[in-house]
């Protein structure tokens, strides 16, 4: 059996604020992302979903628990190895795109490969391939400030993808986009997931975006409150199912 790409066990996170021992943000939370899976994590604000994403993506340390990605215990790594691991095995798509505005589109996309000191020829080729995949070839020599939000997010996705990581993290990737651009973005992410076989873990509060995932975990007060699996049903009916589930939570 193939091992899961990500395995988180008993994650606990408490923010220390002065003398008080605060309510834990994440309470003994465990989850698994299977290889090739497209997992969405939903939850209202304050549910701990951003904290969870930060911990899983090595940007933050949990108070206790363990995280294994690709069979490697990421909490045992030092800063340097962690950074390298992030650069090689993970991709990131952010809500506010996080492109470097002093670099052109092509240069932004090439950054992860530059960091790994890949040969320039190979870098060019890879940038070419992902630019075609995300339909941003024409924008190669433009600067981020000259692009629309949707275009910027596609560049962000291309950068997350260019080094062919095992897992891409998305932090509200459609949060700053209008519905048309959001749909387009989610279609691209689905394409990446299916054609490139890259696992995706995405945090979102938008049911529409979540409906593109193959599985959804609902987070509430630092715990997993529910789960939906899309299975064979169409995206539209999955979307209805999600809305229903969210309605149940409201009550």
């Amino acid at each position, binding site marked *: 059996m193939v091992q899961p790409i990500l395995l988180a066990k008993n994650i606990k996170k408490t923010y220390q604020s002065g003398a008080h021992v605060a309510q834990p943000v994440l309470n003994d939370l465990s989850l698994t992302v299977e290889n090739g899976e497209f997992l969405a994590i939903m939850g209202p604000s304050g549910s701990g979903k951003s904290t969870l994403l930060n911990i899983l993506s090595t940007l933050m340390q949990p108070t206790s628990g363990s995280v294994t990605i690709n069979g490697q215990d990421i909490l045992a790594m030092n800063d*340097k190895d962690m950074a390298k691991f992030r650069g090689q095995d993970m991709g990131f798509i952010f809500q506010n795109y*996080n492109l470097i505005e*002093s*670099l052109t589109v092509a240069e932004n996309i090439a950054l992860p490969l530059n960091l790994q000191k890949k040969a*320039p020829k190979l870098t*060019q080729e890879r940038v070419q391939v992902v630019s075609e995949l995300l339909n941003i070839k024409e924008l190669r020599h433009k600067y981020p*400030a000259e692009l629309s939000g949707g275009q910027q997010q596609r560049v962000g996705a291309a950068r997350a993808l260019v080094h062919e990581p095992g897992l891409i993290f998305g932090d509200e990737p459609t949060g700053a986009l209008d519905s048309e651009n959001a749909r387009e973005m989610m279609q691209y992410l689905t394409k990446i997931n299916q054609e490139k076989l890259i696992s995706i873990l995405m945090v979102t509060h938008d049911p529409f975006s979540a409906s593109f995932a193959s599985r959804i975990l609902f987070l509430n007060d630092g715990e997993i409150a529910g789960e939906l699996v899309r299975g064979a049903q169409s995206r539209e009916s999955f979307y209805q199912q999600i809305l229903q589930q969210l309605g149940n939570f409201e009550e």
Partner: protein
Amino acid sequence: MLNKIAFKALRQKWRDYSVLLIGTTIAVAIFYMFTNIAMNEELLRSLSTMTQKMIVFVFVLGQILLGVITFVYLNFANSFLVRLRQKDYGLLSMLGATKHQIGSLLLRETLLLGLISSILGVFVGMGITKLSGQALMQSIGIKLSHWSVGTPKVVLVTIGFFLLIFLFNGLYNRWRLMRLDTLTLLQADHVVSAKKVNPKRQLILGLLGIILLGTSYAIMPKVVQWQMIGLTVDLILNVTGTYLFVGQTLGLVTYWIGKSEFGQKGLRNFINGQLRFRLDEYKRILTMIAVLFGLALGAISVGQGYYVSLPKQAVENDALTLATKNPKTDFADLKDVTYQAQLDYVVKDQTVYFNKDSVKKAQVPTLVYQQNGQPDAKPKQTTVDVNHPEDAYTLSTLANYVTGVPFGSDVQLVNQLPAGKQEIIKLVKVKDLQANESVLKKMAANEKAYMSNPDEMIPGAYGNLITLKTIFGGLEFMSIFLGIAFLIMLASTLMFKTLSNVSLDRRRYEILAMIGTTPQQLRLTAFKDVGILFFIPMLIGLMDATMGMQIFKPIMPDPYSGFSLGLMLVLGIYGGYYILTSLIYQRLVLKK
């Protein structure tokens, strides 16, 4: 209430403000240092009688230049302040504070900062003046009689000047702030523009930059012939050339690097992109710094060059190293003695009598200033011709010295010394004047007891050297002092310009960290990122100064003789600033 908010802001953002405060304090201190000398007329007059007009002119010019740099500098520093606070102002405005209230808040903060840094700066300025003054005087080996650490007048002028600039800056900031709407304020960090360039135009202008800069270097050796016009034309060519070089030529370079395989390694493209992005905004300040860096290095080198040429001049102007009336003087302590002798003489009615035979036998070295009755531009080193003692410079100097009357002593060479008190004078010449300086100094000190006029110059190259040092030492002191003051201001200006953009850079570095740059790579990148900004003006400034020394070729024996020392001093200070800036930059840009 507004006062309270202004004061609280200072306390809360202490780390950011401390950078600002240190910077402005340095500006005040340097200005104080300079004003202290510029307003000390007695000192300026005592430095040199011959060049009095020139030195006053140099200081007026220096003060104007320093004033301009200070103004630009404080402008950067203040825009740094506005950037620090812009978001808070936006928030206050959203909560219902009126534009007028916010403007007034900013003005108060600016003035508060101005007041604190002016007072601190004056104290720091006094400290630096005292320490650097002492250190410089000691290393040059002179004592300036009218040197002082400051007068109330200097303190008042400095504080007044700065409060005025801060007031002006505060008003300007307020005016600018009041034109912005709340939304722009809140989104302070997101305003980024990418400038489009026309490649053809850039190529032409880039080449023009190289040509202009090159021309300004090429004509430097001839500039003095064309006097003021030459200097002005050259300066214009140089400044324009530098401006185009920084703005356009380097733009082309970053464009090529971005395209090349060289740029594809590691974070080179990131650093290159940073530079490409900054060039348009930085071209003015980098040009200013490049030109002034060259001037500062030039000033120090020329001053130093004059100074190191003094021993050579001293030796050229005398055939002996030292003459002494002290019979106990032992020349054995001196190194490499090439000549020594002892002459008997008798003084009678302002006339000094030497024995002709012993002068002949001693082969006394002398300079001859004329040949066949015609004056000679370059004195000839020879020995005294006993048939023409009136031509022998050495003998008349010795005569003037032993009588204590500078002019009008007569020399007679006789076969038999007349009756009277017979005295001796010992003569010595060494190969290397500087190597023997400390021993000679002791001999000269012991000589005082035997001198009929203690203010009299002791004959020989050593005496010449002392005289030259009192004349030119002050000039050297000034040139080094001036050069250092300018350099510190320049480097501080660049430091602020770099740090004031830190909020934009911070985001870029955060992104780099998130996508997998190791902490070590980040630190190294930050070092290089800042390094390039310091390197560009340094490189151009170094070329300017190296070439610029040619200007002094017709008026100085060896313009480059002081260059290495000037270079060490300048690079030391500038390098120190670079390290300081990149450390602060790292602290601000990289998250722990």
